[in-house]
């Protein structure tokens, strides 16, 4: 004889408060939201300005306009040619790369977490009730599309190569007149601007390589590391970088802005580039 009485239906502890946290849990979300907003505003304005994106002579092209393939691109900036005719800048000059740069960051695992928290508030902080009645995460469109991060990663690698090409140019001044009117000799040479671009490109590479997709492709997808010692070594290096992915996400935002700002100021002849060699 077996008598089994079903346990009574149980409910959660009824606690009204949205959270009982006593620390300033809202801080982080606010800081992230503010910084991201500032950056996006700055970038938007800059991308559509259509001025001061290239410093001739020095050969500095801001990353926001690279590759410069619109018909309006000034000579020197458009090292890869003009792909469409000149039209007023409702289309950004770097229309070819910007969607991917944007897509890469938008689908980045770190940024996703960060803006879900900061803007969408799901959750605003851990153990703080979110304001939405339902939640389906990244299971449906549009958010399910974030799984395309892998694709954006591949594009980001190409764009990093383009950035590197810009970097090479920044170390190879031309005889064109610089915004402040000086003449440089054609050949190897660099100034503070080149170094800033160098730092930016190094950081961009670090950010791109520390991507979770990269970690997966290079080795993470393997089951037996011991059978692939080289890939295991690479995976280890990428994993080390990956630990700093969040930090790199923020430093690259900063370095992009600093690089652009510097080039803008030099291009607008606010001050001349400080040359170190030629």
């Amino acid at each position: 004889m077996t008598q089994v009485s079903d346990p009574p239906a149980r409910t959660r502890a009824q606690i009204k408060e949205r959270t009982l946290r006593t620390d300033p849990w809202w801080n982080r979300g606010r800081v992230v939201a503010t910084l991201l907003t500032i950056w996006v505003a700055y970038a938007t304005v800059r991308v559509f300005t259509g001025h001061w994106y290239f410093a001739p002579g020095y050969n500095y092209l801001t990353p926001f306009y690279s590759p410069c393939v619109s018909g309006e691109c000034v000579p020197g900036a458009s090292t890869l040619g003009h792909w469409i005719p000149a039209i007023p800048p409702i289309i950004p000059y770097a229309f070819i790369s910007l969607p991917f740069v944007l897509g890469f960051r938008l689908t980045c695992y770190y940024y996703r977490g960060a803006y879900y928290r900061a803007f969408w508030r799901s959750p605003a902080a851990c153990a703080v009730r979110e304001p939405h009645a339902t939640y389906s995460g990244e299971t449906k469109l549009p958010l399910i599309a974030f799984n395309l991060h892998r694709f954006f990663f591949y594009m980001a690698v190409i764009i990093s190569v383009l950035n590197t090409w810009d970097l090479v140019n920044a170390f190879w001044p031309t005889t064109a007149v610089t915004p402040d009117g000086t003449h440089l000799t054609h050949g190897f040479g660099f100034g503070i601007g080149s170094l800033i671009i160098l730092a930016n490109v190094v950081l961009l590479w670090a950010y791109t390589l520390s991507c979770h997709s990269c970690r997966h492709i290079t080795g993470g997808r393997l089951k037996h590391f011991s059978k692939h010692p080289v890939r295991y070594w690479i995976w280890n290096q990428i994993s080390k970088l990956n630990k700093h992915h969040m930090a790199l996400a923020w430093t690259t935002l900063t370095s992009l802005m600093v690089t652009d700002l510097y080039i803008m100021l030099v291009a607008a002849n606010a001050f001349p580039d400080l040359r170190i060699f030629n």
Partner: protein
Amino acid sequence: MADETTSTEIERYSYDVVVIGAGGSGLRAAIEARSRGLKTAIISKSLFGKAHTVMAEGGAAAAMGNVNPNDNWQVHFRDTMRGGKFLNNPRMAELHAKEAPDRIWELEAWGAVFDRTKDGKISQRNFGGHEYPRLAHVGDRTGLEMIRTLQQRVVALQQADSYEFGDPEARIRVFAETTITRLLKDPAGRIAGAFGYIRDTGKFVLFEAPAVVLATGGIGRTFKVTSNSWEYSGDGHALALLAGAKLMNMEFVQFHPTGMVWPPSVKGILVTESVRGDGGILKNSDGKRFMFDYVPDVFRAQYAETEEEADRWYTDPDHNRRPPELLPRDEVARSINSEIKAGRGTPHGGVYLDIASRRTPEYILTRLPSMHHQFKELADVDITKEPMEIGPTCHYVMGGVEVDPDSAASSVPGLFAVGEVSGGMHGSNRLGGNSLSDLVVFGKRAGDGAADYISALGAARPAVVQADLDTAVTEALAPLRRGEGESPYAVHAELQQRMNDLVGLIRREDEVKTALSDLEKFKERAAIVAAPGERAYNPGWHYAIDLRNMLLVAECVAMAALERQESRGGHTRDDYPGMSPEWRKVNLILSLHGDKIEMVHQPIPSLRPDLLDLFEVSELKKYMTKEELAGHRQAAALEEEH
């Protein structure tokens, strides 16, 4: 509401085998019983996967020979017997040494992920009393790995039943947070079932089953300073006594040499022996590495005499002798105690365990991550930079239910015991790492034993006697019905303190006698403890019920400790400091008659000649009388000496 609190309604279940305890031994037994096609229930006081085994750190001993190929079962057997000071049941020690490797490999096939050697085998580490690196381990969380693996194996079996019967619990079901308070027998004296309550709801439950496997673990909660959790109230020991089974070796309680001593709230929490196995040393407040002064004669030949030799051993164990920090636990615990008593202790009443000055931080972090975590979080000590303060803590009971070595059957038909609740395997002192392997070796055997018993039983199943069931209900309800009375927490706290002070690491006749008379008073108080509140998850009530078991066990320990007039392993008598070959031949057996515990002397099983021959006669003569050695291959040598 009064109705609900005192309701006598009972849920009933019927099983072939009921395993009480979801630790390593219980789960292994249940897996075996289920694999033999029996309908099996696993009962546990705590949640599934949280039994005490989860706390084991160092490793599981098995002579796989992965690190040192010279290792084999004979060496393991010798080490075990030496560690237990030759009081072990030799058949158990033999089975254990022979079968442990297979049981460990089996865990691996079920998904356990042990640390690896360079060539991809299971890595093995050094531990006190083991001649070769022998402990399969995962960092310092081996118990977690074992219990999780067995838990996941149970789940795998349930999944098989999901596919076969559409019901994962068709043949194996876990009753978590359920406490058994009585075993029930049929009029012929055979096991018929187990009675208890479900902690969640406070409801009573009866499991009707012809075979019960006790796997309830130890008794450490009877002592104040202990590495054991609340589960260790000696339930299985008491249930067995109450059901008419016999306990043995109850005087042997292992005090682990290294428990935390500070802060007070964590006093007793274990510091794994691997700290010493991996290079940690013991120092007193003068900075002296004192263990060299305490190597006893019987171990002189195997242990280093200088620090240089001891340090060389870690890298070249074949040509150097072991550091004395790795002596068996009883020796190390006593030495630490002596240092503290002599006034060379640390500010918080321990001694120093130092690995910081001997190994790199990276090494410490990979080998001892959870120790690092534990000290950091609980004591604000960074063990990669500072020494730890440690002292002895009650850790393990060698004593337990007397069982048949091959089948784990007790003297009560249908009752089996395995794991820490069983006795005999470890003699007077258990070697580190021998428990985890004991759990799986004898867990499997108990499952088999129960299955064989049931097939011999045939169709007729023993039936529970209604009157016994009523008594069990009344007994369990008593503290709730009482309304006013003593607090169970207070009685328990005082009991722990008395046992620690009077029947602890070092014992004296007068003190143990005092303890025995105190216990009488505790019993009177326990009879009137009250637990206000409701039935559902009422810890006061649970404590009140556990007190009966702790008192029974405490009395057994004290009685046996008073009787045995020698010092051996986990039993140290200040007034009888030496080891006596005459006492070695004796097991103290306890049983319950009415409400009186009776104790008899029982000769210990002799070593088979082939097992005897595994030792040199020169070693055996330190433990055994000449007559016992007559059958030894070198017996002639013994004659010449005289």
